[in-house]
């Protein structure tokens, strides 16, 4: 065995070979793990309220800060969606809303949900909290930079929200911010609104870069003894790969935002062609609006996977823990995450089929888009095979997991429709598109977030969330979300265009009226149901059942800290030593149905545990 650990090439995540039996503890070399390469991390411990809770350098507190702020902006996005649905379903009740307001709400809802809610929550929130704990580090490798990252995000959110209060209001150009209309008079918020949006995005990217460097280096260079890459929980793999994507995709957004800001402020013409307005030629000329679309979607498509990959990772762990089985095809799952991440950089122009492009380019991008379905489908099969004949706990976490799989498959299939040029062209800019991406990157990741909250709440606070409230929350959200988005596919097929303030008396859309009312009612209900979670959190913090150590009988390191919730520095005096992957559940011959990552091989020498 000693040779095995010295020669790292023979360490496999999953091998059919089992450790030969023998009396426990009789072979001392069995437990050998080579000594630490890096000396223990030197941490700054805050003592005052300010250094402990405000300008805090503890990744766990930063994670919670990210989580709370992202949730706050998410609730604003939710309220905006209510207002939009009010207008679409019951326009007579929304008399206070003008078309300008509607476009502003559409824009801000989209931008907030994609960037300031989902991205910040998955990477900033879960990333900060879970990465150091799961890889066995004391903290992120650059705690100070990590703190600055959160406060940059904070300022970015402030700037974004400030745009609601400037003359002209926030930008109303759609979340894609396409020029030339985004900065021309006639579009709501084409003055200060769009400028603040660009500034906010630039701040977000700067802040994210600081956080992202932390996540990457912590995973690459600060794992604990015995923690090989192929023993990391898939959550870490998902967040890690998503961060790589973000580091390479956000530059395009930064450049696009900066250039658009210069077009607005200095009158440059990066994206502005010659424009006639009311018979007059504007000062602009010679620029290319398509260039912005390329920059935006070079960011925008990887962004989808920046949201989806952490969700894939987290869901894999949740399913494995709560069906008491190892994840099916761990290595395949890892390579699928990495493969999806790499492919996501070669598909961006499928968002631009109707912008006009050479048919061969459409062919190319349709092909790459459909290829992504392969690793994605592999992941879905693996989740289902993990559940197959598992000892499933039908708790709230598992319900969210199942909800995710169903929703994700649904959204994925409509994605195959839209990935084909000839099908996309008639469907583009209809409610079919809305239904597709809300299913696949709205509801599905949201389900994962909810599952993750119910799963890790006992770790963060030491208390369980209420299962009863959780089930109400799940069923209202799940059924409600389907009531919202399933009919939208039909609306898309009959040709109802998206981003329209009002349908007026379009005769072919009479069947859409009643459906719009129904969708709106469902949307109000689903939105309101989310407050069950907030109520549940507050109630459980006060009166929840005390969880104790490792309440889910999980294997991964975050549950194995000496104190629950973990303290600053995570591990007390001694860093954990890892001997196996995080998925040894229901191993034949083992005393319990789980073998933690820190359990030494000699302790389980009699079992049929696989060598990982």
């Amino acid at each position, binding site marked *: 065995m000693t040779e095995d650990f010295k020669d*790292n090439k023979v360490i496999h995540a999953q091998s059919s070979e089992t450790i030969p039996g023998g009396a426990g503890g009789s072979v001392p070399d069995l437990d050998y793990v080579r000594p630490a*390469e890096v000396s223990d991390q*030197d941490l700054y411990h805050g003592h005052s309220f300010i250094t402990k809770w405000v300008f805090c350098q503890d990744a766990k507190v930063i994670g919670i800060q990210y989580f709370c702020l992202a949730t706050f902006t998410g609730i604003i996005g939710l309220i905006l969606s209510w207002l939009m649905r009010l207008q679409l379903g019951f326009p007579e009740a929304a008399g206070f809303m003008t078309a300008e307001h509607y476009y502003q709400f559409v824009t801000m809802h989209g931008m907030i949900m994609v960037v300031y809610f989902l991205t910040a929550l998955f990477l900033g929130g879960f990333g900060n909290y879970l990465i150091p704990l799961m890889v066995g580090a004391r903290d992120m490798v650059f705690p100070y930079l990590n703190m600055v990252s959160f406060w940059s995000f904070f300022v970015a959110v402030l700037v974004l929200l400030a745009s609601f209060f400037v003359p002209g209001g926030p930008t109303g150009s759609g979340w894609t911010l396409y020029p030339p209309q985004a900065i021309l008079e006639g579009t709501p918020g084409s003055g200060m609104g769009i400028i603040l949006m660009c500034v906010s995005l630039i701040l977000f990217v700067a802040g994210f870069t600081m956080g992202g460097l932390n996540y990457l280096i912590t995973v690459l260079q600060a794992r604990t003894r015995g923690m090989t890459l192929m023993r990391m929980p898939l959550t870490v793999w998902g967040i890690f790969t998503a961060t790589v994507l973000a580091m390479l995709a956000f530059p395009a957004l930064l450049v696009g935002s900066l250039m658009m800001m*210069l077009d607005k402020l200095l009158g440059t013409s990066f994206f502005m062609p010659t424009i006639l307005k009311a018979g007059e030629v504007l000062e602009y000329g010679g620029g290319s609006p398509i260039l912005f679309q390329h920059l935006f979607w070079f960011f925008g498509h990887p962004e989808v996977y920046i949201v989806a990959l952490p969700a894939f990772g987290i869901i894999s762990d949740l399913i494995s823990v709560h069906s008491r089985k190892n994840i099916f095809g761990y290595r395949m799952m890892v390579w699928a995450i990495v493969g999806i991440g790499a492919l996501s950089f070669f598909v961006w122009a499928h968002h631009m089929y109707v912008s006009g492009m050479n048919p061969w380019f459409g062919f190319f991008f349709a092909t790459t888009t459909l290829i992504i379905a392969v690793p994605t489908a592999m992941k879905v099969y693996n989740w289902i095979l993990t559940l197959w004949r598992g000892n499933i706990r039908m708790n709230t976490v598992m319900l969210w997991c199942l909800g995710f799989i169903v929703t994700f498959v649904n959204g994925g299939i409509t994605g195959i429709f839209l990935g084909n040029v000839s099908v996309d062209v008639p469907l583009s800019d209809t409610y079919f598109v809305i239904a597709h991406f809300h299913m696949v990157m709205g509801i599905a990741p949201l389900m994962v977030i909810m599952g993750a909250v119910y799963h890790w709440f006992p770790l963060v606070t030491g208390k369980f969330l209420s299962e009863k409230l959780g089930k109400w929350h799940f069923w209202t959200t799940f059924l409600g979300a389907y009531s919202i988005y399933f009919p939208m596919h039909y609306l898309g097929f009959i040709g109802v265009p998206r981003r329209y303030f009002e349908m007026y008396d379009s005769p072919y859309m009479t069947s859409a009226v009643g459906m719009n009312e129904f969708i709106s009612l469902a949307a109000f209900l689903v939105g309101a149901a989310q407050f069950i979670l907030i109520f549940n959190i507050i109630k459980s913090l006060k009166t929840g059942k005390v969880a104790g150590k490792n309440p889910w009988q999980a294997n991964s390191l975050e549950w194995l800290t000496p104190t629950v919730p973990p303290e600053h520095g995570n591990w007390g005096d001694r860093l954990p030593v890892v001997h196996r992957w995080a998925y040894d559940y229901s191993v034949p011959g083992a005393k319990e149905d789980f073998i933690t990552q820190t359990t030494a091989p000699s302790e389980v020498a009699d079992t049929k545990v696989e060598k990982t």
Partner: protein
Amino acid sequence: MSDPKIEGYEFKPGFGGMAADTASDQTMFKGVHWGKAMMWIFLLSDTFIFSCFLISYMKGRGSTPVEWPNASEVFGLHVFGVDVPLLLIAIMTFVLITSSGTMALAVKYGYEKNRKMCGWLILATAIGGLTFVGMQAFEWSKLIHEGVRPWENPFGAAQFGSFFFMITGFHGTHVSIGVIFLFIYAYKTFAGHYDERKRGWFTSMKGDYVEIEILGLYWHFVDLVWVFIFAFFYLW
């Protein structure tokens, strides 16, 4: 540099060794300081930023219907009664590349714990960078004086000024930030912070000579980007 010694770990050459490092526990880049790995990844991200800028520049230059100004005329200098194309740029480039050389030497002397030499060389690098920024300011004011603006210019396509000011401005900001840090690091070197392993002002992490190498990576990157900007703006 030779491989670092790591107890219980055997280094192997070639791709096999790389695969073994990747598959091993604890670290992927063996013996590499956290900060150094971070700088490399940051530079990769920054490369994407500059690539986006330069690709946009190519696209912008391709899509404008107006003729692009002739670089060797616009950037020429009139000295001693002779028109010399690209004179200023040649000097700027020379200064910046030289500063990369002094930076590399500073790193070498830093690792040899030769505090004085290291400090002076960092200072020389900083002055080189400052000279570059100063000459760039001169070039900008000359062009502005001749009527080049971000939104228009007398020589041809308006996008020429837009891209020129944006990209050289973004690069110049990088250089300026580098110069500020070079001065700080020169002070810290002379004051012996790296020898005493004194804690940083903000990060409260212990100082180490590796920080100079990390700053050096950034500085070489900024130089490298300049080579591309030089090629795209002045030679194309």
